[in-house]
C-alpha cells in the first residue's frame, strides 16, 4: 500500500505490475484475456442501457452516443473504449500501465476508430480539470490502494448530471470460492494473485463510498456466470460475486 507512489496516484504498484505482465494478448478472445472477452457483452449491455436511459438516447440509431464525452479508467487494450467510440462517443481511455497504451492505439487504428489513449490515473487526470459526461470504472476499484480517494477523483471527473458506472466483486464466502478459488486456482482464467479477496467490496460498502464521493447511486445489478451455457448475464437479484452499479453526479 503506497499512498505516495511515484506515479502520483493511489494505484498500487504491485497491482500494476501484475497487469503489465498480462498486457500482450488483449484482443484474442480465446487468449489470455478470454475471461474479459466473455464478460464483455454482459458489461456492454449494462453500460449501453444505462447511458441510453440516463441521456435519453435511442440504441437503435446508428450513433446513439454522439456528443457524449466518455472516460474509461483502466482501459487496458480498449475492450470498452472501442465499442463506445463505435456508438459515437468521444472517448478518452487511461491506463496506469504504459505498455497497454500502444496496444490499444494500434488496435483502434486498425478498427478505424479515433480514441484518445493516455498513460495515467484518475487522480492525475482529475487534477488537470478535464470533465466527462460518463466515467466507466470497471473492475478497477478492487485493485486500488485507497478506494475513497480514488472514487473522489472519479466523481471530480464528472460534469454535473454525469453518469458513473462502476463494477467490482462482492466480498463473501461465495466470491472467495468463485472469484479466487474458481477463477484463479481451478479455471486458471486469471493468474494466481490477480485479485486480493480482502479488497473486494460489498454492494452496501460501495454505495456508501459512492455517496461520500458526492455521487447518488441509482442502480445495482449482478453479473452472473452460467457454467452450463458458458455465458454471463445480468441479474437483478444475484449480486453475490460480480456486480455493477450506476451513480449520478447531482446537477450543480
Amino acid at each position, binding site marked *: 500500500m503506497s499512498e505516495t507512489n511515484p506515479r502520483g496516484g493511489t494505484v498500487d504498484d504491485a497491482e500494476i505490475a501484475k497487469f503489465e505482465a498480462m498486457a500482450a494478448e488483449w484482443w484474442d478472445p480465446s487468449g489470455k484475456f478470454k475471461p474479459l*472477452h*466473455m464478460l464483455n457483452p454482459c458489461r456492454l449491455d449494462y453500460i*449501453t442501457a444505462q447511458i441510453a436511459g440516463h441521456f435519453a438516447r435511442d440504441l437503435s440509431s446508428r450513433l446513439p452516443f454522439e456528443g457524449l464525452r466518455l472516460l474509461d479508467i483502466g482501459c487496458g487494450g480498449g475492450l470498452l473504449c472501442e*465499442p463506445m*467510440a463505435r*456508438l459515437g462517443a468521444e472517448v478518452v481511455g487511461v491506463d496506469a500501465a504504459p505498455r497497454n497504451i500502444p496496444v490499444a492505439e494500434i488496435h483502434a487504428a486498425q*478498427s*478505424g476508430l479515433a480514441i484518445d489513449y493516455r498513460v495515467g490515473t484518475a487522480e492525475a487526470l482529475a487534477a488537470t480539470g478535464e470533465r466527462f459526461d460518463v466515467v466507466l470504472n470497471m473492475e478497477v476499484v478492487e485493485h486500488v490502494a485507497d478506494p475513497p480517494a480514488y472514487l473522489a477523483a472519479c466523481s471530480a471527473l464528472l460534469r454535473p448530471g454525469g453518469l458513473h458506472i462502476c463494477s467490482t466483486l462482492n466480498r463473501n464466502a461465495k466470491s472467495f470460492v468463485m472469484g479466487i478459488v474458481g477463477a484463479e486456482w481451478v479455471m486458471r482464467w486469471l493468474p494466481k494473485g490477480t485479485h486480493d479477496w480482502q479488497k473486494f467490496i460489498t454492494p452496501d460498502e460501495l454505495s456508501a463510498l459512492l455517496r461520500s464521493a458526492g455521487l447518488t447511486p441509482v442502480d445495482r445489478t449482478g453479473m452472473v456466470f452460467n457454467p452450463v451455457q458458458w455465458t454471463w448475464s445480468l441479474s437483478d437479484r444475484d449480486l453475490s460475486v460480480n456486480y455493477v452499479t450506476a451513480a449520478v453526479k447531482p446537477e450543480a
Partner: protein
Amino acid sequence: MAHDADILIVGGGLNGPALALALAGEGLSSVVIDAQPAAARAAADFDGRAYALAIASRRLLAHLGLWERVAAEAQPILEIKVSDGRAGEGPSPFWMHFDHAEIEEGPMGHMVEDRHLRPALLSAMEAAPDVTTLSGETVASQEVGPGGVSVTLASGRRLTGALLVGADGRSSGVAERAGIGRTAWGYGQTAVVCAVAHERDHGGIAHQFFMPGGPLAILPLAGRRSSIVWSEREGRAADLLALDDAPFLDALRPAFGSFLGEIAPEGARFGYPLGLSLAQSFAAARVALVGDAAHGVHPIAGQGLNAGLRDVAALAEVLGAARARGEDVGAEDVLERYARWRRFDTAALAMATDGFNRLFSNDNPILRAVRDVGLGVVGGVPWLRRLAIREAAGLTGELPRLMR
C-alpha cells in the same frame, strides 16, 4: 477505415436477400453480390418451384414485411399425411396423420411459389435504404485484414466490410476461400420437381409417400394445383426428366394415385441431385455461412429453406445485438455466438433427414416392417405426434426473435 457496407453478402438467392432485409432492420447496411443478372432474377413466369414455409419462416417473412406481399397467393397446409407405399400395392395400413388442429399456431405451414416470393424479396430490397444489390457480379478473391474483410469482384471492383457472409449455396466459394472444409455425400438420388394441375380439390393436405426409390411429396398449391417432389434413383430420375409430358404423367400416375382425379403438367421439370453437404464450421475469421453454404440437407422434409431462414434470423439477431453494444460485428467472439447457436440444430436435422431417408428408401422387408411400426407409433401417440408437428412447423429449439 470506412467500409462500403457493414456486411458483404455473396449470393442473391433467397437467404442472401432475406438476410440483407433482416440486417437493415437491425441498423446494419449490406451489399448483396449476386452472380445472376438482374433480368434473370426478375423473370416472373411459373417454373414449377415452390417452398413449404414452416410457421417460424412465415413469421420471419412477416417481420421483414414480405408475408403481406405473398399471403394472397400462399396455400395453407392444413394436414400432412405420411405413408409407406410400394407401387402396385398401395399404401401400407400404418401411416401418420398430422392435423394443424392439434397445435394452436394455425396451419403447419404454407406453400409459396418461387415466382411470388422472389419478386417480393426484390422489391423489398429496392425499397430498403441500407441494402445495395450488385447483379451479374462474381467474387474473384477475398482477403481478411485486422479491421475488416475485402472482396475483389471479377469486374475488378473492390469492396470492404466488417463481415463477409456466404449465402452462395452448397458449393460455396466463400467457404472454400475461407478454408472451411465440407463433409459431403450423395444419395445416388435426384429429386424431380414440377407442378401438376388436378381435377379435384386437395383440401390443403400435403402427402408424403415413401417409395422404394425415394420419397414422393405432393404439396398443395393455391387452386387445384400441387407441387411434386419426386425423389428417384439417379438413372431413373434422368429418364423421367427426359420424358415428354404424356409419358411422364404415365410414369407418375401409379405413384401419385387417383385421389385427385386426372392430372396435367404445369410449367417445367427440374432435377436436383440429392446429397448432404455440411460445412465443417459456420464461421471463420470475418466470414459467416448461411443456408446451403453451411448445410445442404436432404430435402426430405422440406426443411432446406426453413433451416436457411433460421440461420438468417439467428445471424441477424446476433449481429444486431452486437451492433447495439458497439461490438465489431465481424469479431471472432461475435461470430462464435452465431455458430454455437446454429451448430446443434443443424447437426440434428442433417442426421434425422439422412437417417430417415436411408430407412425409407429401401424395399428390404425387415426395414419395411420396422418403419411401418415406427410410423404407427409416432402416429398413434398424441404427444409424439404433436412434437413431430411442432418440429415440422419449425417451432422447436431456441427460436430467434424474428421467428417468434
